[in-house]
């Protein structure tokens, strides 16, 4: 029995048992008339409301979701609503990224004695939902794939991006190898990069014996974030070679005590930007419709701010055109911690546009276009979860709720809603923890731009908690803490 057609819309409420549920009772006892649309789900505390309940409802067809708890300082469990305030405000600023109108989700505080206030809250919110009308479903959105290909409209990078001459590079690389050889005996292994299956790919290298260290390479092909292997070495001593962006992942792991400081030896050097293989391939492809896509060059040489590709059609590409998006605005060219070889890194990025290009593209879309965009992009998702397993922060790997039956958040249905739901789960779990290393997007075998969702989330976290992940080893991720008086969270109109 769905809602009464034409009269009601689907409005779901999550009310805390001690205050707001009591407030709704008091409104009932006071016979304060209210619209009938709201269905109330009782939870022990607003701190029990998982933002994913709201997303599950909104994606599942709810036209409006209302959460209400005790007033700050008056929570029966003393801290529940403080956590709820941060979680739900983060969700509210994130919803527009999916093309969902944030006015369809509201959270507020109502105490057990405020019957009159509850009536006003419900009437105003339901009225607002009726103004918005039925919520458009993402799976029914017209697919929208903006034609602007990634390559051509890129703004200039904010730092020089010029690799040192081959000579100095190998010299500092030899210094790095020396440091690793010295540390190798007391470590289980040291993780680095080595040449991959063709001239365009490096691949992770696990060095256990001195001769393995000879294979270590350092250059624009070292795209992988090796910090993702550290949690598996939890109680063994391990070494890892990091670029600047990877070092932020190591810091975040240390912040959350997912790796022990004295079990991890970090090595690193200055980095001048790594290639986006997709862009290189697009720049190499002679013409559309080539019989075989991945024609790889025979060899690649690093020359200052460019890459020289030998092979049947020698090509020279400027680094600025083929480098990964994150490197254009990189402000940590030198690793922030660890035993770092003082290479001559060029200056970090100066101030630039506040949003990276793919986030700017998402900003530019209308909500309708965003729904269509995510519908079209997620349609080809294989649910292989490479985006999850490549992410250094995803430590619950084998027990992820994307594939579990208890709790049973996601079904095995192959439709867009289930696929998009995991991306929302991933973004929410990374709120205040993601260092934008870009591995999730790089690992995706069908190249879905999932990084844009995390960049949007990081922007929300920055504005709400002026916090950046993986910068200070002692900082606590904002959603694992709360403030009694929130500086940047303004109470909403209800």
């Amino acid at each position, binding site marked *: *029995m769905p809602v009464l057609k034409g009269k009601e819309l689907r409005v779901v409420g999550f009310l805390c048992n001690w205050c707001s549920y009591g407030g709704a009772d008091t409104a009932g006892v006071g016979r304060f008339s209210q619209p009938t649309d709201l269905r109330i789900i009782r939870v022990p505390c607003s701190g029990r409301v998982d933002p994913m309940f709201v997303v599950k409802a909104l994606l*599942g067809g709810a036209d409006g979701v209302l959460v209400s708890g005790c007033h700050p300082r008056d929570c029966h469990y003393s801290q529940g609503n403080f956590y709820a305030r941060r979680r739900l405000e983060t969700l509210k600023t994130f919803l527009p990224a999916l093309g969902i109108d944030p006015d369809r989700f509201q959270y507020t505080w109502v105490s057990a004695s405020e019957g009159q206030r509850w009536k006003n809250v419900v009437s105003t919110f339901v009225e607002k939902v009726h103004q918005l009308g039925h919520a458009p479903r993402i799976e029914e959105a017209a697919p929208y*794939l903006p034609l602007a290909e*990634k390559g051509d409209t890129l703004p200039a990078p904010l730092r020089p991006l010029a690799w040192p001459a081959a000579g100095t590079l190998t010299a500092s690389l030899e210094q790095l190898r020396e440091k690793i050889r010295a540390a190798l005996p007391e470590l289980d*292994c040291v993780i680095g990069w080595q040449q*991959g*299956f*063709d001239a*365009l*790919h*490096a*691949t*992770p*290298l*696990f060095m256990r*014996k001195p001769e*393995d260290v000879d294979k270590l390479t350092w250059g624009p092909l070292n795209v*992988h974030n090796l910090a*993702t*292997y550290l949690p598996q070495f939890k109680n063994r001593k391990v070494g890892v070679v990091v670029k600047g962006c990877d070092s932020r992942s190591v810091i975040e792991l240390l912040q959350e005590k997912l790796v022990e400081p004295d079990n991890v030896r970090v090595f690193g050097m200055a980095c001048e930007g790594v290639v986006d293989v*997709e862009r290189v391939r*697009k720049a190499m492809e002679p013409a*559309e*419709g*080539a*019989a*075989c*896509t*991945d*024609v*790889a060059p025979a060899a690649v040489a690093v020359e200052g701010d460019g890459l020289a590709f030998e092979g049947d059609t020698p090509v020279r590409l400027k680094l600025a055109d083929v480098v990964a998006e994150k490197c254009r605005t990189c402000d940590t060219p030198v690793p922030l911690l660890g035993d770092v070889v003082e290479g001559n890194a060029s200056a970090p990025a100066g101030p630039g546009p506040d949003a990276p290009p793919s986030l700017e593209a998402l900003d530019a879309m209308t909500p309708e276009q965003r729904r269509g965009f995510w519908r*079209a*992009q997620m*349609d*080809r998702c*294989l*649910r*292989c*979860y*490479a985006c*999850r*397993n*490549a992410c250094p922060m995803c430590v619950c*790997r*084998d027990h992820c709720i994307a*594939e579990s*039956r208890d709790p049973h958040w996601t*079904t*095995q*249905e*192959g*439709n867009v809603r289930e696929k998009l739901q995991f991306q929302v789960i991933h973004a929410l779990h990374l709120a205040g923890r993601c260092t934008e290393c870009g*591995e999730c997007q*790089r*690992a995706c*075998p*069908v*190249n*879905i*731009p999932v990084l844009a969702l995390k960049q949007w989330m990081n922007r929300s976290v920055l504005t709400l908690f002026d916090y950046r992940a993986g910068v200070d080893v002692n900082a606590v991720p904002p959603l694992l803490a709360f403030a009694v008086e929130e500086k940047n969270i303004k109470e909403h109109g209800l």
Partner: protein
Amino acid sequence: MMSFARYIARGELARALDDMARGRVAYAPRREGDAVVFRPRAEGEEPLLARATVPPKGVIFPQSERLFAFIREKDPNDPGRTTVRLDSTVDIEPALIFGGRPCDARGFHIFDRVYLNGPYRDPYYAARREATVVVTLACTKAGSTCFCHWTGCGPADATGSDILLTPVGGGDEGGFVAMAVTERGCAVLEQANLPEADAARMDAAQAVHAATQAALDAQSPAPDLSATPARLLERFSDADFWRDMSDKCLSCGACTYLCPTCYCFNITDENDGGDGMRGRRLRSWDNCMSSLFTREASGHNPRMGKALRLRNRVGHKFSYYPQLHEGVVSCNGCGRCITGCPVSVDIREMVVRATQANEETPNA
């Protein structure tokens, strides 16, 4: 059969395709974002000839399909008694896959051995397989990760296809020699009433095949893998070897879902919304690299570590399957698992290293 051949001029391809796909849903490669995937093709749409990022296996062996629906009905006067009605109607629409490569098409052959000719015939797979015509495009260039010539496949292998197109002559005056492989292929090709492919064009096609084969042999000479099944069994307990091979693996599912020959699936029941009395049984792709693949209800997992799982993936393709199927290797050498792997795990390296004599140190 090889004698039945037609010639499609470059400009005529779209029209020919429309005729061949009359009454069928035609799937062809289309660029979406930065990937090329198989999508239903609109009438007259010029098909993209690039190789698809994902194999066309999803058309015949969908990522998630409904096996049947179950509907619970209550006895009106005794709500305590509930009967369950099953609705297992399988609605399959005739389809045509255009633009797959020989390594994709041969994948269906690997599936057929398991789902059609095995001890149990899978009705769902059979229905889709018989309803789908496979029009394959022979390769003209060797990709850096292509090794179809290692596994008994080849740039012009017709196994699993109904029609094999070979691009001849370059540029706009070139065209395609379309050879029918199966009766169904002939019938479908007949629909397009195309001119006969004369001897010269047939020879040109043979030349293209030979040239591509030569390029492949030059780029990566095929090693002798006849001993591989036995060698892999010997390596079964070599923990160090599999540790080294799987160290960098993230144990995600990219390789299995990109693989045209991976046919494992998982079955789950899902509840429908509405009045809660209806539900569906789903079959969806499963991935042996995930720990969930072998996790038991108790929580025990025979293949807890990723090394064991990688050993199983390589062993299955190059040892267990061949022993069951007269030496046929369940890998077509398309190389997608290598390019699609986030950390570039290379199955060729694993097979070659496993096949070499034991005495060599694994990390050579």
